[in-house]
């Protein structure tokens, strides 16, 4: 056997790659092992019909901090944007669409336009105070160490520095639901829904679920300071981001192996000492860092026999089932969205006409059914990037809510019906769409689990909610990117600050590993 690596990263998702890149830049010998044939995890580009490519899971880049792009030289390593600062268009079945950021348009009253900018300014102020949390290791309570005490003080100061009224306002709304908050603020049903939609995207929440103001602020916090003016589309799809991260990591000296599935973490004398691959190969490493979701990490890769029952129970109870599906359509021509020419398609379109539409869509899933009229986030990548489809042909990519992880009748029985409902729903806004479809693909959360190896298929590898958040994410005992086992770390979306193609989990974890190794 060769000398052990300083660190072995299990999983070449964007967080694993980021973690490896930072470790390699710190001069450490790093190996990334990715089970799939390509790196990227849920940030990938792949074909789904002959000649058609799509960002198969995440499709918009809106949270990756500019400093990671700069640090790792991602532009130099091939990251190019096909579209930046993409507006959001809330589609209307008839009448004008709502365009955000709002101008006096889309039937919005002057009051609502003002109210919207006041609201966003208020939320952005809160988000700015939350923002620094994202790129730090959350403190642990009760340790009494200087680092944890300092971090707690900083956190308290961050909130206190909002001032008396600001702090009171934040503490009033943070536990609220978006439904109530947006009702307080605007009159337009479409505007209310468009704002609330961002709070529930990728979650197991409807607009009326408690804690959705938190998810909204959190998303906003992650978007502030992001590259590409928040909403961007990399040329060549999300895979370009991952490829650039991989190139950056390799340039810094990291080794990356694809089609290398890790079967088990190797443990000796109660510490992680490497990994065992599915093909039987063993590789030694002094630190093992998992990019996989917490359930996969602890129950499959490490194994309950190395963990205590109470901890395993917490992992087992970690809510990690997704409620978000993905649809890809290969089209023979540009999708005929009403009143939107090709330039208009260079946007992020949403189907969320009213709060009750989204809430009703959510209701179905409580009973194990999909939404009959789902809410959606739609992009047409080919409107800004010709590399994704044959000439003059187009791709439509939609994030669809809501779809339960397991359907009461079994997905195989109802998947086609759900796809039909989705297409019908889009057709309401794009009459004639059906005739253009060359191929269609639907990924339910169960399919996402299978394809991307994310147990439960959740956007964030596990719900981002108060009880699975920040200091206790993913669960007590696995916070601060560490685990109960010496030498074994986490760097994926299941850790703070959660999912979204952001890279902060990977970077924070690298910092923590270096601190521990020192």
């Amino acid at each position, binding site marked *: 056997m060769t000398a052990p690596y300083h660190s072995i990263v299990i999983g070449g998702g964007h967080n694993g790659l980021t973690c490896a890149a930072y470790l390699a830049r710190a001069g450490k010998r790093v190996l990334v092992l990715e089970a799939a044939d390509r790196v990227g995890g849920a940030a990938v580009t792949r074909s789904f019909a002959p000649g058609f490519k799509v960002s198969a899971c995440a499709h918009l880049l809106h949270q990756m901090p500019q400093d990671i792009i700069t640090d790792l030289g991602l532009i130099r390593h091939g990251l190019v944007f096909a579209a930046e600062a993409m507006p959001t268009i809330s589609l209307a079945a008839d009448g004008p669409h709502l365009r955000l950021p709002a101008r006096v348009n889309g039937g919005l009253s002057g009051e609502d336009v003002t109210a919207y900018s006041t609201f966003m300014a208020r939320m952005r102020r809160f988000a700015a105070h939350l923002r620094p949390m994202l790129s730090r290791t959350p403190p642990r309570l009760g340790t009494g160490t200087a680092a944890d005490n300092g971090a707690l003080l900083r956190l308290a100061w961050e909130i206190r520095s909002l001032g008396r009224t600001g702090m009171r306002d934040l503490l009033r709304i943070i536990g609220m639901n978006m439904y109530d908050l947006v009702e307080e603020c605007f009159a337009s049903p479409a505007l209310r829904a468009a704002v609330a939609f961002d709070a529930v995207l990728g979650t197991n929440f409807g607009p009326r679920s408690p804690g959705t103001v938190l998810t909204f602020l959190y998303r906003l916090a992650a978007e502030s300071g992001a590259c590409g003016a928040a909403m961007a589309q990399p040329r060549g799809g999300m895979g370009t981001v991952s490829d650039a991260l991989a190139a950056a990591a390799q340039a810094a000296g990291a080794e990356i192996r694809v089609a290398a599935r890790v079967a088990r973490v190797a443990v000796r004398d*109660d510490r992680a000492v490497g990994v065992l691959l599915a093909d039987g190969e063993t590789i030694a490493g002094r630190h093992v860092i998992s990019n996989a979701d917490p359930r996969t990490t602890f*129950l499959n890769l490490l*194994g*309950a*026999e*190395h*963990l*205590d*029952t*109470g*901890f*395993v*129970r917490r992992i*087992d109870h970690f809510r990690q089932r997704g409620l978000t599906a993905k649809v890809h359509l290969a089209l023979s021509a540009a999708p005929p969205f009403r009143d939107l020419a090709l330039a208009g398609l260079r946007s992020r379109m949403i189907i969320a006409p009213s709060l009750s539409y989204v809430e009703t869509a959510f209701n179905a899933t409580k009973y194990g059914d999909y939404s009959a009229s789902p809410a959606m986030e739609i992009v047409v990548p080919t409107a800004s990037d010709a590399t994704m489809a044959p000439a003059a042909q187009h791709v439509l990519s939609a994030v669809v809510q809501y779809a339960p992880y397991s359907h009461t009748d079994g997905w195989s029985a109802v998947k086609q019906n759900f796809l039909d409902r989705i297409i019908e729903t889009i057709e309401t806004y794009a009459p004639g769409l059906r005739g253009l479809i060359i191929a269609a693909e639907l990924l339910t959360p169960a399919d996402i689990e299978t394809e991307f190896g994310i147990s439960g298929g959740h956007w964030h590898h596990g719900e981002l909610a108060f009880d699975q958040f920040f200091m206790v994410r993913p669960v007590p*005992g696995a916070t601060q990117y560490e685990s*109960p086992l010496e030498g074994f770390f986490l760097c994926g979306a299941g850790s703070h600050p959660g999912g979204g193609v952001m890279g902060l989990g990977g970077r924070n974890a690298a910092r923590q590993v270096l601190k521990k190794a020192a």
Partner: protein
Amino acid sequence: MSDAANRPPHFKQPLLTTPFHSRTRACSTVDQFVAWAGYTTVDVYTTVEQEYFAIRNACSVYDLTPMVKYRITGKDAENYLNRLVTRDVRRVKPGRVAYSVWCNDDGHLIDDGTIFRLETGEFLLCTAARQLDWLLDSAIGFDVAVEEVTESIAALSLQGPTSCAVLKALGLRGVERLRPFDIGRFVLGGADMTVSRTGFTGDLGYELWMTPADAVSVWDRLMIAGASSGIRPIGSQALDMARIEAGFIMPNIDFVPAEASVRIGRGRSPFELGLEWLVDLKKGHFNGRRALVAEQKRGAARRLVGLDIDGNKPALKALLYADKSCRREIGAISSALWSPTCKRNIALGLVDAPYFETGRQVWAEIYLCRELEWERRVARGVVVEKPFYAPARRKVTPAWDR
């Protein structure tokens, strides 16, 4: 079992009766019953003293049926138990029993109990309290089945110097050859019976395991076979005296089960309870191991020890002090007894470092209620080794059979 189906709804019958109930009821002369793990059981049949002396001088019979029993089977049964408990279960051979404890993540005791290895892949775990939730959560990631079988196994504990003689008179040939913690299988009047040389009294004794249908006939045969050996049914009070003499601890008396305590700091580790001999830190990972390794490094802050107290007044629930003037509190007593056999005033108590070392002197503040008037006594105590009572015959094989 069809029994369960015919039973009235639980709110009409809050306590179950054991398969021996018709007999234990008939033997009870003072009508003193007590609820134990959902069953009504005898606390005292006649007088505590009479029953206690049957344990120490002859042969006692105790209805053990309410003892909670879990059957654990499956490919990973051994690994599962080895991760659950503090001892190395791999070293328990089929046909053997091991006493052990198990801890939560903090290394605090959840319970103690006995593990019967019936076959290579079949175990019976006997505990004082129900904990199926903990056992099932512990099964995540293991190929095992955990099933509660309390109701389908009737059990009697036969303890005392003549217990082996009684079993031989009953017709269990070769029972004297069972070593301590051995399991033997016998046939009695056509019915299968499992016998283990185990018990809770610190003396020679056996536990008999049978199907509920055979319970009454086994009881009746035992009473006949034991008539000339002084056999006597005993209740929980007499057994409690014997277990203190034997130095055994009881949940909710000497420690609070970790998963049942609500206050921070109430959990107790095996080290604190004087059970380090049950903890195998070298066997690989088990629940609480990392916390126990850390605790071992820190050193114990307190410890449950045996105490020999001056005078003859049991130091029930007494606070312990370093000084006679009772200014510096250093612990408290959880079990106490005037031991009729040892003729000593004994107790189990949790004592702070460094006072828990053998030979140290402590002071117990004892309150006595004498015809409704309270008297306070401060008695000197000395930390002593446990058990207080340990006759050599408990370990001798072949066992005493006269």
